């Protein structure tokens, strides 16, 4: 897990929501995220709260409030993937709190993808706030030795990016320091899904071109749920729009993540 605020690197996933307190509670209650900087009962956030950072291990989500009437949908940033030590148990815990699985991806529960990495993965897609996709990914080859990832579910696994052309998208993310790690493909009746994983530090992007994203006239939602990748590092601050409309922001000066708790007078 990377160190915070040491001049290194952190990837933050920005999520747009029409109802910020509900979204924050969903991420807290079902997905194990907590307000990053201090204890916060997210159910009673002030109505005018425009953004909130939530963290689970090395994954930070920046919730951003949008107008209640703004229609949100799936954009080029398709999903956030979190590690799962046991994806079946994770899904069961989600179901116990009425979280829905994505009927387009894993309608019946976790599935195996043996073609990924050396020993395959077992995954499930659930709906987060506003039906934003959250994947849980169990690596069959992961040794159980990492003390930071023993909890189920865990922290960052990857961020799923959808594109028309993998090479084109790879070139865009190379400009932010991401280097190719592995290529995979999945054969489907509609055509191949081409997947490339690119990495910077401990953060991974899954860049995928699917028959749907390559189809003539294909487009992404104008107001995407997962709306932006924020890279917190010492690089020159900037905001760039990629070939599929995705927005990547370089941001300096990550907020102090130290958790404040000991200031209350409990006597």
């Amino acid at each position, binding site marked *: 897990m990377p160190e915070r605020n040491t001049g290194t690197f952190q990837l933050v996933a920005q999520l747009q929501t029409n109802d910020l307190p509900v979204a924050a509670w969903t991420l807290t209650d079902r997905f194990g995220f907590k307000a990053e900087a201090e204890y916060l*009962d997210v159910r009673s956030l002030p109505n005018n709260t425009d953004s909130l950072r939530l963290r689970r*291990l*090395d994954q930070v989500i920046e919730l951003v409030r949008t107008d209640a009437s703004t229609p949100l949908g799936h954009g080029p940033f398709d999903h956030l993937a979190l590690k799962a030590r*046991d994806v079946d148990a*994770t899904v*069961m815990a989600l179901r116990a709190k009425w979280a829905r699985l994505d009927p387009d991806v894993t309608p019946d529960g976790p599935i195996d993808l043996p073609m990924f990495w050396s020993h395959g993965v077992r995954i499930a897609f659930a709906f987060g706030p506003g039906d934003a996709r959250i994947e849980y990914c169990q690596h069959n080859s992961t040794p159980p030795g990492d003390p930071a990832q023993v909890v189920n579910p865990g922290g960052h696994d990857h961020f799923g990016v959808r594109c028309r052309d993998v090479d084109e998208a790879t070139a865009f993310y190379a400009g932010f320091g991401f280097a190719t790690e592995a290529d995979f493909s999945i054969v489907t009746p509609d055509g191949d899904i081409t997947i490339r994983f690119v990495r910077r530090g401990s953060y991974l992007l899954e860049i995928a071109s699917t028959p749907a994203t390559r189809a003539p006239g294909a487009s992404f939602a104008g107001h995407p749920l997962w709306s932006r990748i924020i890279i917190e590092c010492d690089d020159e601050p900037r905001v760039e729009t990629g070939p599929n409309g995705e927005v990547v922001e370089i941001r300096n000066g990550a907020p102090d993540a130290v958790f404040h*708790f*000991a200031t209350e007078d409990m006597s």
Partner: protein
Amino acid sequence: MIGAYVTDPRVQAFASIFHFGCLGEEKTLADVIAEASKLRRSGLNIEAFDCEASMLDAARDTLEGYAKLHVPVGYPAGNATLKQKLFQLDYLLDQGIDDSCYCLDYANLAEGDWKAVTDETRQVMERCGDRLPMAMVIQATLLDDRQIVAACEAILAGGANRVKMNTGYGWGTSLEEVDLVHRHFNGRIDIHPSGNVRTIEQVDHFLSRGICIVHSASVFEIVEAYARRLGLPTEAGGPAQ
């Protein structure tokens, strides 16, 4: 006892699997307030604080939303009439608590009256709907392996999908009991170990089975042991060796 290590996101994530509480007939209002205050001072962002219905207001006022509130029904052995327990459940639903468990009638479990277990579970789950996450308590330690499996089948048939292995309060959950349920029901039932969870080694075992929720009165000691494992400074003995 509580150190600066709680600010570490890894420690917070680890702490988030735990329920900590103050339950039992001998626990006074002062005890509940003291334990809730201790939790709040700790900075540990645990999953929930457990207390009995009569102590709910005190816990709520002390925690002020700091942790979710988990209140059991029919604690500890389900020895009340179904009507009494459902009345208590209705009260808790009205109170808007965050999480609960329901102590099944132990006589039905011990005598193997699985139809009665299913019927009781169904009535509870129909009342809860999608308003309150509910775990069914089966007092696994007092059952043999076949009874544990049958009890889980019975509550599944009644519409429940979470099982709390024991109530604590003298009944402890063994690693073998958790393994048994995991082996038979992983992916079909959410397992909550409870009772006599005292060490990080026990928690390691539960986590290796994908357990997401653990009840323990020793959460502070276990989290500190985890911090030492990460090499973080603790008052009890500095970084891990």
